[in-house]
């Protein structure tokens, strides 16, 4: 998601920047300062690190998990965290929580991330097209999106998932379809805003072609708000995906995702609170991390937010 490179090769580094009212700013240029700016943003950096760890753990679940996530031990139900052999305890059926969290992460992360990415790309393309073409193209695209938009989000996802065969990819497809109008509307609004900026007119006066205007001027301005929105959606979609699983339209038992674990644990909340609380904490932490990541990326892409 890096916009067209505007860096000059080999300049900036080590140059003095003094005087003329502007505060001294660490010398760096182009892509390099973006990475540097991102690394300086501690919250975003920590969030990125955390997400890499979580994703890595989920990816390596077959190697890392001490037990089969579906293997129930009826003699060891409701074991609290710290029980010998079960680091995070067991759930109501005596299944190892750690193993289930690791395997559940594979589903939850796919359901949270893939639809948001696909819908963002599609929504961006539709929004840019609608916002720059105007007229009939705009009307047709936006009215079509409005039709999808008019359904309650989860209801539509349920309807789509119900038509297809249950499974993780059904979840992914239905959530993607539901998200496109949200992202598309945002992208169109941002496109209209950027397209009305004076520097667009200046670029036209200099002889910019339509393609150059779109790719080099409009898109880099539309990406940051979209990025922030998309990252906040990830956490929400993990929960929506769990809802679909809960209704039997997504991932099938005994496999599970984090959201489904929360809802399963709910029944034995008094007896074994950790069965609900642990996956809940994971969902909150991952959602928050994505939000911080989004904010950090937006700031890193914006020269105005450059700080020491």
């Amino acid at each position: 998601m890096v916009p067209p490179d505007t860096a000059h090769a080999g300049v900036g580094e080590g140059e003095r920047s003094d005087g003329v009212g502007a505060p001294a700013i660490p010398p760096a240029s182009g892509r390099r300062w973006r990475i540097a700016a991102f690394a300086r943003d501690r919250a975003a950096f920590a969030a990125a690190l955390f997400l890499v760890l979580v994703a890595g753990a989920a990816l390596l679940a077959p190697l890392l998990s001490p037990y089969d996530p579906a293997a129930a031990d009826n003699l060891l139900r409701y074991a609290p965290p710290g029980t010998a052999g079960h680091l995070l305890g067991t759930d109501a059926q005596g299944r190892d929580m750690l193993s289930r969290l690791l395997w559940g992460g594979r589903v939850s992360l796919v359901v949270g991330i893939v639809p948001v990415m696909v819908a963002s790309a599609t929504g961006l393309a539709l929004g840019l097209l609608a916002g720059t073409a105007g007229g009939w193209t705009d009307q047709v695209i936006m009215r079509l999106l409005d039709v999808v938009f008019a359904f309650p989000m989860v209801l539509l996802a349920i309807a789509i998932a119900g038509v297809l065969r249950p499974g993780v990819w059904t979840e992914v497809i239905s959530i993607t379809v539901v998200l496109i109008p949200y992202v598309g509307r945002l992208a169109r609004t941002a496109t209209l805003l950027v397209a009305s900026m004076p520097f667009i007119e200046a670029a036209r006066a200099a002889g910019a072609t339509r393609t150059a205007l779109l790719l080099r001027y409009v898109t880099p301005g539309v990406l940051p708000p979209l990025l922030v929105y998309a990252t906040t959606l990830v956490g929400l979609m993990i929960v929506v995906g769990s809802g679909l699983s809960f209704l039997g339209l997504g991932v099938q038992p005994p496999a599970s995702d984090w959201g489904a674990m929360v809802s399963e644990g709910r029944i034995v909340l008094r007896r074994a609170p950790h069965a609900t609380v642990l996956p809940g904490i994971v969902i909150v932490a991952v959602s928050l991390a994505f939000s911080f990541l989004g904010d950090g990326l937006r700031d890193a892409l914006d020269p105005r937010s450059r700080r020491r």
Partner: protein
Amino acid sequence: MPEALLELRNISKSYAARRGRGRTLRAVAGASFTLAAGETLGLVGESGCGKSTLARLALRLIEPDAGPESGIVRVAGQDFTGASTAATRRLRRRVQIVFQDALSSLNPRMSVGVNVAEPMRLQGIGSERERRSAALELLELVGLRPEHAERYPHEFSGGQAQRVAIARALILRPDVIVFDEAVSALDVSIRAQILRLILDLQQRFGLAYLFISHDLGVVKRIADRIAVMYLGHIVELGAAAEVYRTPLHPYTEALLAAIPVPDPRRMRVRQLGVVRGEATSPLEAMAGCPFRSRCPHRMAICDQATPDLLPVLGRHDVACFLHIPFPPERKAA
């Protein structure tokens, strides 16, 4: 007479009015002027009279009204209005613009060096390295330092941003630069510096300027010829000295009387800035002189016909029935 670098002939631009179906607002009504090499044409008029619309028409950022009497813009004798996409792009190299709000006319996501070099890139001229050295050269020429190239537009003051915008306008080596209220937003001392820079650059490169401003004092300093605009019409056009000495149109007279005199003993207090009467709405049906409702010399003919811009004294043109012959009596409509 030297060949005109920029020529607008009978250019009009109408917008659909927000209220009232079928009513249109004529932002520019049949404007014509020419601009020769090395010359500065000052375009003055009050806010909303169509100055900026005219600038955008000259640059083909907006399209003029089409129709049987549609006007034409020519750049160095070539038709700009009907030019193909490729030809338009090529002709754009010859006419560049500096906007009033220089800061927001620069891309906030590109460093100033990249911003200045951007027209070359958009035109596909030169290599990355050549563009960069051209940009650095121009930044120096407009009085900025090479290290400024690495900074971003938001780090610049208004005057500096205006210098950057001027550098960008120069990089394609144009023949004509349009300044759309380019110094109006600057404070007085900075404005004087930028005006000096603009005049120096004209000397150096033999540029032709279309200098748009609502400030007659500024235009007086810089312009060879002056065009006065009122409600979309050019009402007077002539050599600057002549227009200042002997204004022919009542509106020009009123404008000149409205320039404050920076001398308390000579200051006119009673008449300062007074243009009598209510302005005609540009929405109203435009038979008749646009200035008639505010004109102290209103005659019967002024309500019936719109005066054309015609030469009165050599190359001093005016659109006013006080100075030009009445049109032949029209048949009852």
